[in-house]
């Protein structure tokens, strides 16, 4: 039996073929790293856009791709300031029910159509009827009227202090009126933005490639010749792509961030969400203990927020007792540590409320927050509160929340503009107020915000104070979004966004 040579030959062939591919691979990878011109930008994005129809645009990191091809009526600066873009000026009437918007006259779309008042109206109408994920942004708009070629009136059913902000977001994206409503715009955007899509190089869910648009009206916002958005769903893939130089910037998390820092990547951190408990059942419909404000306050006093943050999130964030974000205007210094860690006080409050024998809370389990939930469980147990962790949240959770399935929930929520936050977690129409808790005092404060116009942020401080004092929530901390980039690009974080706006990148100086 002489099989030695054959087995050896097989091993040889195998190793030779591996070595061959390895050599070839070296050439390719090297070429990609060195060959990229300074004016190209490649970003690792978490998820591809569903449809390029501007009416289907989203918020946060899902807004960025649209900004490449569509201009918004209003530009939101990195610090949140609203500046002219396609709109040159805008003004409310005295009752805050009509916004008159002046428009640029020198802008065309990439298909040659002209941007004017009729185009702006067509877009706002299209957005309102488009049934997209952000259609609620124009809920307060009754109709849009063309005043003259470069002016529109946006009429509102009720004042909405967030409208100007929305016009810098999904609702403000302007597509070519010729393309709106066609099937073509779903896969190939037609806007007036700084870049146009290179359709031939774009593959759904893999990469979207754009080139700088010739004669773009605002060269200050067009800083690269080529823009590639590479879809990298998996955090490990994003880390590897960034560290090996395949992408210039991407979103990571505290753990993968350590690896990026080891490879000398730069961090542009930004607080966008808050994490903590939402105490839904404040009227005690299903869990009577939660009706008692002292019980809700006791829950708040039970947490050593700083330690949880340091241990679970590697310190990436800020402990807080308030659900409103720092950039919202509703945030106040005084509420930041309103509930400092005080287990003795928590026990005392439970006793005063008649619950010295303990309280039981139930939360759904959430795979992403497993560690947080078990720490919370531990700290609540220390003051005599039992946290029962139920079945995992599924992708039907929004309906489950709305159907009052949960009385308490650990979650991470976006910290937006005051009215956005109110509509999300506080008003009786908010999804995260499923038991529709309300009282006249709070209603008056909310109404004041809605009618407050430019003072909405300041007026929302009263709402914030109310829900903190009444312990509607048990916030733990605001979480840092860990956006990393290499030395080839400069990146300015954008408030309230995990991923910066597309205008915030520039070639490194």
């Amino acid at each position, binding site marked *: 039996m002489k*099989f*030695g040579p*054959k*087995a050896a030959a*097989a091993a040889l062939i*195998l190793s030779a073929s*591996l070595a061959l*591919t*390895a*050599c*070839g*691979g*070296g050439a390719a*990878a*090297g070429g*990609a*790293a060195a060959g990229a011109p300074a004016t190209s930008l490649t970003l690792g994005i978490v998820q*591809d*856009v*569903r*449809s390029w129809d501007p009416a289907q645009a*989203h918020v946060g990191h899902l807004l960025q791709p649209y900004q490449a091809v569509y201009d918004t009526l209003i530009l939101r600066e990195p610090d949140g300031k609203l500046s002219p873009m396609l709109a040159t000026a805008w003004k409310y009437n005295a009752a805050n029910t009509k916004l008159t918007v002046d428009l640029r006259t020198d802008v065309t779309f990439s298909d040659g159509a002209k941007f004017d008042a009729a185009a702006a109206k067509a877009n706002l109408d299209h957005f309102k009827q488009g*049934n997209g*994920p*952000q*259609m*609620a*942004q124009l*809920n307060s708009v009754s109709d849009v009227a063309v005043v003259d070629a470069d002016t529109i009136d946006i009429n509102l059913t009720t004042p909405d202090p967030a409208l100007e902000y929305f016009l810098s977001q999904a609702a403000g994206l302007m597509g070519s009126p010729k393309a709106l409503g066609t*099937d073509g715009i*779903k896969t190939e955007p037609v806007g007036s933005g700084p870049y146009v899509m290179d359709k*031939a*190089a774009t*593959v*759904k*869910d*893999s*990469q979207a*490639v754009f080139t700088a648009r010739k004669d773009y009206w605002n060269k200050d916002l067009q800083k690269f010749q080529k823009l590639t958005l*590479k*879809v*990298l*769903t*998996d955090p*490990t*893939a994003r880390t*590897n*792509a960034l*560290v*090996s130089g*395949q992408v210039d910037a991407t979103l990571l998390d505290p753990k993968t961030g350590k690896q990026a820092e080891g*490879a000398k990547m730069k961090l542009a951190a930004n607080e966008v969400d808050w994490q903590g408990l939402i105490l839904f059942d404040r009227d005690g419909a299903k869990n009577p203990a939660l009706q008692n404000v002292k019980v809700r306050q006791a829950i708040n006093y039970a947490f050593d927020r700083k330690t949880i943050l340091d241990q679970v999130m590697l310190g990436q964030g800020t402990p807080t007792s308030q659900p409103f974000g720092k950039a919202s205007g509703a945030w106040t210094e005084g509420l930041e540590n309103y509930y400092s860690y005080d287990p003795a006080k928590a026990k005392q409050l439970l006793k005063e409320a008649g619950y010295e024998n303990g309280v039981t809370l139930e939360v759904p389990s959430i795979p992403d927050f497993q560690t947080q939930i078990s720490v919370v469980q531990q700290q609540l147990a220390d003051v005599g509160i039992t946290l029962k962790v139920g079945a995992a949240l599924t*992708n*039907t959770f*929004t*309906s*489950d929340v*709305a159907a009052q399935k949960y009385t308490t929930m650990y979650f991470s929520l976006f910290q937006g503009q005051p009215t956005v936050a109110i*509509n999300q977690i506080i008003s009786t129409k908010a999804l*995260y107020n499923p038991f529709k808790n309300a009282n006249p005092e709070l209603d008056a404060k909310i109404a004041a915000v809605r009618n407050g116009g430019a003072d909405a942020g300041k007026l929302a401080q009263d709402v914030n104070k109310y829900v903190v004092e009444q312990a509607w929530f048990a916030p733990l901390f605001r979480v840092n979004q860990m956006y990393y980039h290499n030395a080839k690009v400069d990146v300015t974080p954008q408030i309230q966004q995990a991923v910066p706006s597309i205008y915030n990148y520039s070639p490194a100086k």
Partner: protein
Amino acid sequence: MIRFIAKRLGSGLVVLLVVSALTFFLLYMSSGSIARNILGDQASAEQVAMKEHELGLDEPLVARYLAWVGDALSGNLGASWFSSEPVANSLATRIPVTMTMVFAAMILIAICAALIGVAAAVKRGWVDRMVQVGAIIGDSVPGFVIGVILVTLLAIQLGLFPATSTISPDAGADAWVYSMALPVIALLINGVTGGAQQIRSAVIKQLERDYVRTLRSRGIGEREILFKHVLRSAAPAGLTVLSLQLIGMLGGVVIIEQIFALPGMGPLAVTATGQSDLPVVMGVVMYTVVVVIVVNLLVDILNGWLNPKVRVS
């Protein structure tokens, strides 16, 4: 032989129909909150109802299934609820990526496993022991862990390969080769060690059979016995193992594709399932069933060709 194939194809179609019905009803029965998922947490109840109507979720389930089958027969698998992209299009761009990777890995597995397995069976001694130890190590380290190790070592430290896929329409064939190399190796190692182990046992079993002793007593050379008789008889066992590995690999590639950001079926399946994008999920399930049916058919045909007894029974 033709009747044999026709019978197999017929039963394959029945399986396809049964699985499609089961999947459809299981998926769509719990599709109540999908409109809400699509519209997000700020949408009103009326907006949700409108979306449900738009998606046809207010029609009876059976009617929807029959419509789906009718469309599917004409090659129309519907469109994604989230992106409106036709499901058939999504599959058409992704199947080549996954299939290239799976078949490249399978061919290499078949060759390497056969060589190593036969060597272990014939040689025994230290070669055999190495294969046994290798099988245990190979089986105990999952493919995605090997993938992560490969990326860290070969892509990030040494820069020999791209860390994530560079496959795109403007990239040439070389991008395919470089992008596929690490994922294929990651898939390969488990397959080779497991496959070699099975082929080794099958060959040893055959070598111990009486007919081998008879052949030897007639003075027929060892090489002829091995290649003409033993391998032929051991092949069905090897083929079955390989076909099972291929089907198992359809699950394994999901994670591998995520790690290497390959635009294959894996990310599509994960995203669609997470979002409850049911038309896409249906498409993915149909694709999987078709692959399983085709692979089994091919294995049956190969077995029949190698061993006439299979055809008769």
